[in-house]
């Protein structure tokens, strides 16, 4: 293999470095600072030294090392941050982007090639950004006889539904966008939206191949939703709650995958089908029906659908972690925050700075996030791997797997859960 890599030259390197610094400064002043101002308008600012901060005051304090921490801390605990950044959309989008990159490099290694290589300084790490820019800059072509409002709305609804799914996932103790008492029921409701959006977009394109793809997606999603929901009933029976945070907390001693392995397997296979991933990617089978229900999408509409499907992938992997792998539970490996920084302050040469408001986050939150991310990445890895190993299956095989085998296995799983409950092994007042 001949890869032509340019020779390292110090001059070019320094030039690229200064270029990067220049663009970072330009983007910070033009985008970053206005964005910070906009964000500050939307969060509840703390009372500092007896005065309620205004956004402008807070903005000036952002650049003062002693006063910045309370402002940042109030930002971290605001609803805006939860929805847009940490347990919500930003965290999920980051993991989804990492998933796309990992998928491409992993498959490339499996298939004896290099994968993305040139874009970015390290192993094509910026390839995703380049692809995104390409999709944004492409023209959006809408078929002449398409139902335009629905054709436009469907991809946006798809991303919105995927983001709503993400918002239900508890990442760390207390860190969840929407902590509902009927969390699992809300998950089922959201999963039920995807086939409707898919068939709407497929039908609105008014084209043959998207229509066939949409019908296939409908068949697939509807027939795999039933084993998916049934496989989760075992967990609900054992915990007696639908709240996802409480389900995680009930797994502090053991993970449900130990007692309900059949349920976990059924759920995993159903997830592969719901995500339309190989071997269940019939709705997008390119050798049969071009690109299935995505055929008429172009430009950023297509990009939105891809974003939505990878958000969905993250959300399903996270749901698997929450229900079967104990969510954020794990041994404490994050060291505690050094107490002398709070009591004595930070020594920086001759001066000692007392920073109020430390520590910003708790030890449990960091540890939980770490374990949750590790487990989610592991589950995503297992979702990605079949793409390199299996061919696509046929629609009649798919339906027979869904209706005959998985539903039967899901019922066996429910009986196992009931047996464990009535034998007094698990559940409220159980042995373990």
């Amino acid at each position, binding site marked *: 293999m001949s890869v032509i890599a340019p020779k390292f030259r110090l001059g070019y390197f320094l030039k690229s470095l200064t270029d990067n610094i220049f663009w970072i400064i330009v983007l910070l002043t033009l985008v970053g600072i206005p964005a910070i101002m906009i964000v500050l308008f939307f969060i509840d600012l703390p009372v500092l030294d007896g005065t309620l901060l205004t956004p402008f005051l807070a903005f000036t304090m952002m650049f003062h090392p002693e006063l910045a921490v309370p402002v940042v801390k109030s930002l971290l605990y605001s609803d805006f941050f939860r929805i847009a950044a940490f347990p919500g959309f930003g965290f999920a989008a980051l993991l989804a982007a990492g998933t796309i990159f990992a998928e491409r490099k992993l498959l490339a290694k499996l298939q*004896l090639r290099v994968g993305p290589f040139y874009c970015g300084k390290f192993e094509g790490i910026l390839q995703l950004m380049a692809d995104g820019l390409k999709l944004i800059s492409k023209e959006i072509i809408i078929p002449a006889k398409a139902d335009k409002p629905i054709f436009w709305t469907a991809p946006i609804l798809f991303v919105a539904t995927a983001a709503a799914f993400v918002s239900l996932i508890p990442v760390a103790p207390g860190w969840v966008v929407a902590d509902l008492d009927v969390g699992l029921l809300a998950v089922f409701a959201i999963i039920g939206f995807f086939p409707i959006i898919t068939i709407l977009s497929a039908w609105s394109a008014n084209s043959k*191949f998207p229509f066939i793809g949409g019908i296939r997606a409908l068949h697939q999603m509807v027939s795999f939703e039933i084993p998916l929901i049934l496989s989760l009933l075992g967990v609900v029976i054992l915990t007696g709650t639908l709240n996802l945070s409480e389900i995680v907390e009930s797994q502090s001693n053991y993970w449900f995958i130990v007692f309900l392995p059949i349920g976990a397997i059924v759920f995993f296979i159903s997830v592969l089908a719901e995500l339309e991933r190989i071997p269940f990617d019939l709705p997008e089978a390119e*050798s*049969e029906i*071009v690109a299935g229900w995505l055929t008429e999408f172009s430009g950023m509409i297509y990009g939105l659908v891809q974003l939505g499907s990878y958000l969905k992938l993250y959300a399903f992997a996270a749901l698997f972690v929450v229900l079967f792998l104990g969510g954020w539970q794990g041994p404490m490996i994050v060291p505690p925050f050094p107490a002398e920084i709070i009591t004595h302050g930070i020594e920086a040469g001759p001066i000692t700075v007392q920073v109020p408001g430390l520590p910003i986050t708790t030890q449990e939150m960091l540890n939980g996030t770490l374990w949750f991310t590790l487990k989610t990445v592991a589950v995503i890895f297992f979702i990605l791997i079949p793409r390199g*190993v*299996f*061919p696509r*299956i046929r629609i009649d095989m798919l339906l027979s797997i869904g209706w005959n085998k998985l539903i039967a296995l899901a019922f066996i799983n429910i009986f196992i859960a009931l047996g464990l409950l009535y034998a007094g092994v698990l559940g409220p007042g159980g042995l373990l």
Partner: protein
Amino acid sequence: MTARLPPGLQLEKVDDRIMTLNVGPQHPGSGHMRLIIQVDGDRIVSCDPDPGYVHRGEEKMAEYRNYITNIPHLERPVIHDSCNILYPYCLGVEELLGLEVSERAKYVRVIASELNRFTYTLYWLAIYGIFLGHSTMFMWPAGDRELAIDLLEKLTGARVTHSYFVPGGVRNDLPANFEDVCLRQINYLEKRLKAYADIFYDNPILIARTEKTGVLSREDAIRLGTTGTVLRASGVDYDVRTKEPYDVYDELDVHTNVLKNGDSYDRSKTPWLDMLESCNIIRQALEKMPKSGSVRVKLKPNPKGGNDEVYKRVESGRGSLGAYIVSRSKPEPYRVKLSVGSFRNLICMPYLLKGEKLGNMPAVYWSLNYWPVEADR
């Protein structure tokens, strides 16, 4: 009365159960051709293959060029299998001109022809993999194909269109140290081919998907005039290399792989078994080849044949490949007709696809070992 439109372009009634799909020529699941498929739900009602998108008039062009200048353009229909498609033409011209080919040249031809079977069949296998949604099976053969291509580049100087066979032998002798490199790479390729079984041919999903689909019975295979791997997958023991040996194939031990079910799985497995057999043939040829001697007969400029006609055929990657050459005492052939395996295998496609599910379409279509460009010529 509405004007009569060509098939595939007719307007459909909205309440019609039957939907017409144009698979190709701009469809990822077609080659340079079109399949007009009518589906009732998920079941194919009728299939009408529509080849001819890459017709280049190779046979007509051959009537205006002399015997030697025909070589570079006659190989164009299958650039991956260019030695094999020139083979019957060279054999025929040699008989017309009365040329005697040296023993060494015959062995070199066998080696080049079997290496070409690798480059063609691995390409075919790669596309079969991606048609079934198996992306690893697309990348592995496409990468391993480089080994055979490197060998052929060493041998002929070109990666694909070799123009290596000429009437009276081959264009140039083996390069130095070719035998060792060839043996090493063939051994490695054989190892890789066996690894394909683990990921592809023994894959339970692949077996469940392609077994008992598009079944071509032994009688139908003979009746429809199929050839090559399709015929052998249906249980007919027919290989031109053993039934009508040409050049030195009668001195080599060629084993014919015959499978009996005649479904897509067997049709996809026969070319793979053929490649494994090619490894044996190349090893035998390298061993038995005379170590020295000329490889090319010197020709007069513009040689003329007599008033004669000749039909020769060889076993190509897609089946028996024949060339019918008519000579009328001129430097140009009066008529050249290529009888190609692709077109003959295409004929059975409507029979196989009728009543199948739409999802089986790529599995059946590409298992016929059909190369659209060769069928159009």
